[in-house]
């Protein structure tokens, strides 16, 4: 029977003959820490006094976020004309920013879902913060499509976005990828929140009991309310683990479909430069690329501030850099293939669109994109670079900048030069657009700072489960036989 197999089961005889070299497993928690150390370390961040840097960052983030608030209030009270959109560029920063933020979110789901299915145990120490990043990025992304309808209440009633019939009793057009996008993004946001919350339950229970012990009844009740009475029962863990696995299983096709549908917004149209079948995989790779850039941008400072080097080890950073390298190279390959197909397809409009991207009015944006997205990740081939934390952080910022420019290049250059030269134009953003976008970094910052102050930034239960002491057969089945 299974329960006795681990004690009686000796290594197969063949092992003695071939004498395999045991492959060293990467250590995920360094310095041989105990379970209790993990709890104290992560809960200590929440239980300790609020650091001064937190208040300063919070104040700065609130100030920056106010730009979005003012931008939106001005937009709603005046009209969408306050943005720089005009024929032929009727989509610009609003959609650029939307795709940029949504793409950033994708790394969080990749870490929490796809790496879970692939049993990449290093995901455990970064997945909570990355999932939080996903949710806050979706919040920032959602601002743009909702507010670009101008009279924002029309997004809901009568439904420009949500399926509610308009004044003539006509329903939204479900043949449109834009309508698919509404469902994709709202499902993505909802499922991300659910997944994140399920992961939080056992950790909230830890905080509930710790605050109860120190006599903080209010906090204990608050954390306890959301912990749902979790008590670490193994009968509960059994259902919990199954639910977690299913959520990971459905989030994987979800995250791939979200950016696929986002790319359909462009690929299904007929505009040269948009109308290409390479878009879905190319967008998904780009999204993961930018998302990991943002994960590194956020996690490296957290690691330094909270002294989390034992939990986010060099191995974790290596893994993330390598994913950036892989996806960045896919993105670079996609840029090349786009040019090849534009030439090979012999469509003069398509060919012009790409030559115009590289050498036209927006060439500056194109070359910023190429530099940041194609050249930057190649540095991660080198171990010396991956071990230089400051350099990794700087390169991760370049990745973020590059991916914003990618969306700008795709959207604006294609629209500014479409089929008829008589309708060509040049788009520049208005101050309101710039402010609104700038402010979303503040919105993101405010949410993320609240997260690191009040919620455990790493999943304690999951980290403990991948530590060597967590193995009930430790010392039985390894090379000691």
């Amino acid at each position, binding site marked *: 029977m*299974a*329960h*006795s197999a*681990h004690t009686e089961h000796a290594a197969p005889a063949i092992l003695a003959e071939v004498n395999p070299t045991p492959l060293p497993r990467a250590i995920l928690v360094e310095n041989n820490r105990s*379970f*209790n150390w993990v*709890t104290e370390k992560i809960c200590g961040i929440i239980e300790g006094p609020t650091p001064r840097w937190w208040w300063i960052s919070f104040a700065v983030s609130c100030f920056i976020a106010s730009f979005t608030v003012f931008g939106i209030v001005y937009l709603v009270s005046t009209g969408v004309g306050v943005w720089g959109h005009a024929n032929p560029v009727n989509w610009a920063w609003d959609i650029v920013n939307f795709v940029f933020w949504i793409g950033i979110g994708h790394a969080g789901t990749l870490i929490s879902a796809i790496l879970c299915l692939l049993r990449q145990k290093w995901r455990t120490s970064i997945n909570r913060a990355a999932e939080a990043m996903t949710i806050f990025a979706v919040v920032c992304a959602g601002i743009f499509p909702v507010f670009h309808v101008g009279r924002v209440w029309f997004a809901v009633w009568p439904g420009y976005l949500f*399926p509610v*019939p308009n004044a003539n*009793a006509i*329903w939204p057009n*479900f*043949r449109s*990828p834009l*309508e*698919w996008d509404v*469902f994709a993004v709202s*499902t993505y946001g*909802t*499922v991300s929140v*659910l997944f994140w919350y399920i992961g939080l339950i056992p950790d909230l*229970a*830890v905080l509930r*009991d*710790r605050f109860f*012990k120190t006599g903080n009844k209010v906090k204990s009740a608050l954390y306890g309310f959301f912990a*749902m*009475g*979790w*008590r*670490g*029962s*193994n*009968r*509960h*863990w*059994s*259902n*919990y*683990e*199954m*639910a977690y696995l*299913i*959520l990971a299983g*459905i989030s994987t*096709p*979800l995250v791939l*479909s979200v950016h696929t*549908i986002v790319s*359909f917004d462009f690929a299904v149209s007929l505009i040269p430069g948009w109308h290409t079948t390479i878009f879905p995989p190319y967008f998904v790779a780009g999204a993961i690329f930018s998302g990991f850039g943002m994960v590194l941008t956020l996690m490296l400072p957290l690691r330094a501030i909270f002294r989390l080097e034992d939990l986010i080890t060099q191995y974790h950073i290596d893994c993330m850099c390598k994913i950036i390298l892989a996806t960045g190279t896919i993105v670079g390959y996609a840029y090349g293939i786009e040019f090849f197909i534009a030439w090979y397809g012999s469509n003069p409009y398509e060919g012009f669109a790409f030559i115009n991207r590289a050498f036209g009015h927006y060439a500056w944006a194109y070359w910023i994109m190429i530099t940041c997205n194609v050249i930057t990740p190649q540095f991660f081939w080198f171990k010396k670079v991956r071990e230089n934390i400051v350099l990794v952080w700087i390169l991760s910022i370049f990745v973020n900048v590059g991916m914003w420019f990618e969306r700008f290049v795709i959207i604006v250059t294609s629209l500014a030069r479409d089929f008829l030269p008589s309708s060509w134009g040049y788009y520049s953003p208005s101050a309101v657009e710039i402010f609104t976008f700038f402010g979303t970094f503040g919105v993101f910052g405010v949410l993320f700072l609240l997260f690191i102050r009040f919620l455990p930034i790493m999943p*304690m*239960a999951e980290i*403990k*489960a991948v530590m060597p002491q*967590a*193995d*009930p*057969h*430790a*010392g039985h089945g390894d090379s000691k036989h």
Partner: protein
Amino acid sequence: MADSIYGLMARFDSASEIFHAAEKVRDAGFKNWDCITPFPIHGLDGAMGVRRSHVPKFSLIGGLTGFTTGMSMIWFTGAFDYPLIVGGKPYFSPLFAFPIAYELTILFTAFATIAGMFILNWLPQHYHPVLKSDQITRGLDDTFYVVIEARDPKFDLARAKALLTQAGAKEISELEA
């Protein structure tokens, strides 16, 4: 005596200890008992004799409901309630309806999975004798407990204590109901 207490709570200090203790309690034939662990221990379900979770059944029902909802919503709005020709396309086709039905499949599956987890675990349950114990803080931190409930038909205080001691419990306490 056995009526006034909820059960026995026995402490174990490592994942491997509780794993073996769970096997012993299972083999002794107890039904109403549990392990309290700070994280899911690999293989403990088998050691406890816990059957495979029923959560996937909820997920399947949720997914089918979501897919049907998506398809029928688009059929209802476009082909039944207000048929409107757009671009010379059919009023309804499962092809253009697919992306939204796909997203709703995932959305409903997620809700059903989580609902299933809560229902099967009988959560939220903010009052529980185990939560009342002082030891729960450690039980969610770095210690492992076996809890045998007094309502188990095989429960006998002295014999249950002996079993837990023999299984290697470091400390056994009685839980008040």
